[in-house]
């Protein structure tokens, strides 16, 4: 068991997690709930069937202001920020000057507001904020908002549940974002998340989050969900975990995240290492991130080697475990591009033994986002 540590930060919901009987673990410098008494399997399946509430207040929130913050942000990301319409959110990659991935993040343009609202990963937030502020000095100003908390309400019942506390919220469609009130508290709500389900992310002032979390947990459909199920849900949804599936050793092409590069950006080649990255887009990268399904029951964990049928190592697992919805082991990893096609037969090396597996399309479980029609 982890020793209580004074260096670990606590979110405003820490006492609530403990009260709910959560098993707390250190994560990205925070003491966070990995699971509640129901356990990871039940929490995972409940999120897919009804609704789960996640405390993601450890993530980094900030506003980027200036004359044209979107134009400034495009210096650091290949996403189309300038073209983002008011009321929408978008996924982007933060690239370093070599064109490898410093982080992945969400950015939003709120209706009637010039600053962009950013959400970055917990473990990278301090580095990201220093990098963004430093690189954009003189053209944009970054204001981190550690005073804000963040909840995610995910699952098919999320819209009905949140609608009881925020009338009209059900009108939002996938990747729309709005300022509104939730149970009277001012909030920034986006219809997005990291589970593959329909759902919302709810940014609140820290002093309101406990009341709102309790109000949502009091709804019959809602269960608190820990980081354990958050990880298995996002893996089934084929979504990357920064520091595992993507990091500064890979570029967007290798990471199979070319879709996050804006069309205009591909033509203008005006993002970090654009020439190198566009060359890889057209001519192919040496390795690719793929989904992997072992044929048997044994999970292949992060760090496991991937081999071809002759035993030659062709890659490595970057996230691996068990998919409760599929009731089967699933993984993501990098393989040499020749093996990256769907159905490609490979072996995963588990405890020294090659176990047959196949490259599988992502996501493993279909996304159920509420897209605009």
């Amino acid at each position, binding site marked *: *068991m982890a020793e209580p540590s004074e260096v670990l930060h606590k979110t405003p919901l820490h006492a609530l997690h403990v009260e709910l009987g959560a098993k707390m673990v250190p994560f990205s410098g925070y003491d966070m709930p*990995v699971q509640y008494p129901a*356990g*990871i*399997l039940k929490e995972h399946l409940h999120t897919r069937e009804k609704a789960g509430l996640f405390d993601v207040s450890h993530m980094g929130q900030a506003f980027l202001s200036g004359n044209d913050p979107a134009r400034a942000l495009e210096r650091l990301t290949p996403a189309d920020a300038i073209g983002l319409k008011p009321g929408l959110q978008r996924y982007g990659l933060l690239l370093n000057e070599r064109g490898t991935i410093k982080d992945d993040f969400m950015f939003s343009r709120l209706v009637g507001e010039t600053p962009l609202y950013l959400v970055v990963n917990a473990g990278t937030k301090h580095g990201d904020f220093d990098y963004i502020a430093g690189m954009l000095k003189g053209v944009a100003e970054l204001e981190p908002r550690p005073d804000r908390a963040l909840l995610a309400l995910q699952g098919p019942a999320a819209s009905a549940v949140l609608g009881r506390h925020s009338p009209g919220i059900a009108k939002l469609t996938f990747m729309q974002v709005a300022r509104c009130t939730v149970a009277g508290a001012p909030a920034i709500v986006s219809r997005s998340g990291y589970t593959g389900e329909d759902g919302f992310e709810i940014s609140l002032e820290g002093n309101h989050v406990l009341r709102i979390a309790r109000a949502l947990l009091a709804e019959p459909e809602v269960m608190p969900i820990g980081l354990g199920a958050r990880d298995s849900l996002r893996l089934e949804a084929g979504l990357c975990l920064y520091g595992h599936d993507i990091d500064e050793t890979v570029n967007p092409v290798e990471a199979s995240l070319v879709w996050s590069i804006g069309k205009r950006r591909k033509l203008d080649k005006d993002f970090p290492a654009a020439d190198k990255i566009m060359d890889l887009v057209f001519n192919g990268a040496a390795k690719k991130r793929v989904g992997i399904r072992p044929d048997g029951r044994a*999970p292949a964990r992060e760090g496991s080697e991937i081999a071809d049928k002759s035993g030659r190592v062709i890659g490595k697992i970057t996230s691996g*475990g068990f998919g*409760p919805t599929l009731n089967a*082991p699933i993984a993501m990893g990098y393989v040499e591009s020749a093996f990256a096609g769907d159905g490609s037969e490979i072996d995963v090396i588990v405890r020294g033994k090659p176990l047959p597996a196949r490259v599988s399309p992502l996501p493993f479980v279909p996304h159920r986002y509420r897209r605009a029609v």
Partner: protein
Amino acid sequence: MSEVRFTDQHEWVRIEGDEATIGITKYAAEQLGDVVYVELPEAGHKVGAGGEAAVVESVKAASEVYAPVGGEVTTSNSALAEDPAKVNADPEGDGWFFKLKLADKSEFSKLMTAEQYAEFVKGL
């Protein structure tokens, strides 16, 4: 008469004659959380006391299971392949892992009694 002893790695072992049945304790099952996969030794496999004999995996992680006593594996609980959740439901009963023919009974008497193990867990 059967007798049960425990290890500081949270395995239990029950002896009947020269046959030992081995599994993981209730405490271990609770710590692991939902078990999704168990890898068991095959009959005929010889293992020494403290040797790696099986693997138990939860959603989050994989853990080794060590043989509390040495011997030759006679059978393993094939029901766990179909339904690994038995390990959580009844860790010290239906959730047993494997049986072996005991090589040296003195290894058994060195292990913790139920009372000693309960004290040990309390101190964790």
